[in-house]
């Protein structure tokens, strides 16, 4: 016989996994818009708004489960971590929206990507981290998240190298600002992917690690 708490935990897990899908879609769509020179801000805005609403739902559900069942051990770790992960997914969505808004404001439907090769690398690595964090959550795999630290380190290096190039390259002001902000948002998304990884590791093992 399953516990009453299990029903609530299943609902919570379902919402958080849906958030993961929406967050991944938001980041993927915004990056595709930026790299391809398309205004996707409306689509991404909808996803971001949805993620904000879902975060509130996760918090409400988590509090309900705490109040009703006083969970401990793995149950408590799951609830605590899901609240953190929900916030991180919300931030994925918000930064994705920021990318699409930045592109809309400074480049509209024009392609403005500078140094496409290096930008492509940070985009790929960030998307890899986003997917990996969601996959690890779905599989409740604490080991899988360990590689996020290494990838995040690579993102940081590319970010730093890209800033150096931007500082030395004469660009139209709009393009400079657009590229600078987008790469910053990507770096922040990668940071949040490590936070998600830390929360998953805590669920799986009960130990707290820092992946940054």
């Amino acid at each position: 016989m399953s516990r009453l708490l299990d029903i609530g935990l299943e609902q919570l897990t379902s919402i958080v996994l849906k958030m993961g899908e929406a967050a991944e879609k938001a980041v993927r769509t915004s990056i595709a818009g930026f790299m391809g020179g398309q205004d996707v801000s409306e689509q991404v805005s909808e996803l971001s708004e949805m993620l904000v609403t879902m975060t509130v739902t996760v918090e409400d559900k988590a509090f309900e489960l705490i109040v009703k069942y006083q969970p401990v051990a793995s149950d408590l770790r799951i609830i605590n971590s899901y609240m953190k992960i929900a916030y991180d997914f919300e931030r994925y969505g918000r930064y994705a929206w920021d990318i699409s808004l930045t592109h809309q404001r400074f480049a509209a439907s024009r392609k403005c990507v500078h140094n496409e090769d290096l930008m492509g690398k940070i985009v790929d690595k960030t998307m890899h981290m986003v997917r990996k964090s969601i996959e690890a959550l779905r599989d409740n795999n604490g080991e899988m998240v360990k590689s996020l630290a290494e990838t995040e380190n690579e993102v940081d290096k590319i970010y730093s190298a890209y800033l150096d190039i931007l500082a030395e390259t004469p660009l139209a002001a709009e393009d400079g600002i657009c590229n600078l902000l987008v790469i910053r948002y990507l770096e922040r998304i990668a940071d949040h992917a490590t936070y998600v990884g830390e929360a998953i590791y805590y669920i799986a093992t009960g130990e707290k690690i820092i992946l940054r």
Partner: protein
Amino acid sequence: MNNKNKETTVNIEQVRPDAKMQSITLNAWFGSKQALKEINLTVEANAVTAIIGPSGCGKSTFIRCLNRMHELVPNARMSGQVLLDGKNIYSNETDPVQIRRRVGMVFQKPNPFPTMSIFDNVAAGLKLTGTKKGQNLDEIVKKSLQQATLWDEVKDDLKKPGTSISGGQQQRLCIARAIALQPEVILMDEPCSALDPVATAKIEELIVSLKHDYTVVIVTHNMQQAARVSDFTTFLYLGELVEYGDTRSMFENPKSEITEKYITGKFG
């Protein structure tokens, strides 16, 4: 009582000189049924240690071994050692009555002496052990009731029967009765199971305050209560000690899968 292992040699590496109590390879039986198996547990001084586990796991038997009450049960026996300040309470030279004075007990149901007044309930143990009126008896009774956070509620009714007050107050009266004998350790066997939430909260506050002057061991079925009041928690299962640790760790990240299943309600 057949203490078949009174002469067991204590492994010196197991003894913690700073511990208030220790059980060392403690076994206990009721007839042929073994209730406790090789229990090694340290009870830290001036701390609350909670014993949790499903019904029949040996929680109550364990704490009854800590003040030699187990031997009062017909056909009961034990082996191993229980150290109080490093000395075996089951040695031939030890007087069980003295041990029960140093290690007091509060039971599940409040059990004030029904024919005695509130004052006499607290003073009963003292009178039995020779303290007479005038030998600070009034002061000790007052101090004990104050420590049990009951004084303000009964100070004008000391001559009323001990059973005339509420269940929660009766339990605090029993705690005052135990305190009056100035024990070093107070054992509590599910002290709140017969009380309402308000009375339970008062007893829990009292338990936490008592650890400044005493060492407390509490048996409870209520996991949240163990989490709220104790510094250390022990999980017993089928007479064996499965896990012991600081309470925060035990309830956040238990090491044993059986502990995890029990405290999360997946069995038991």
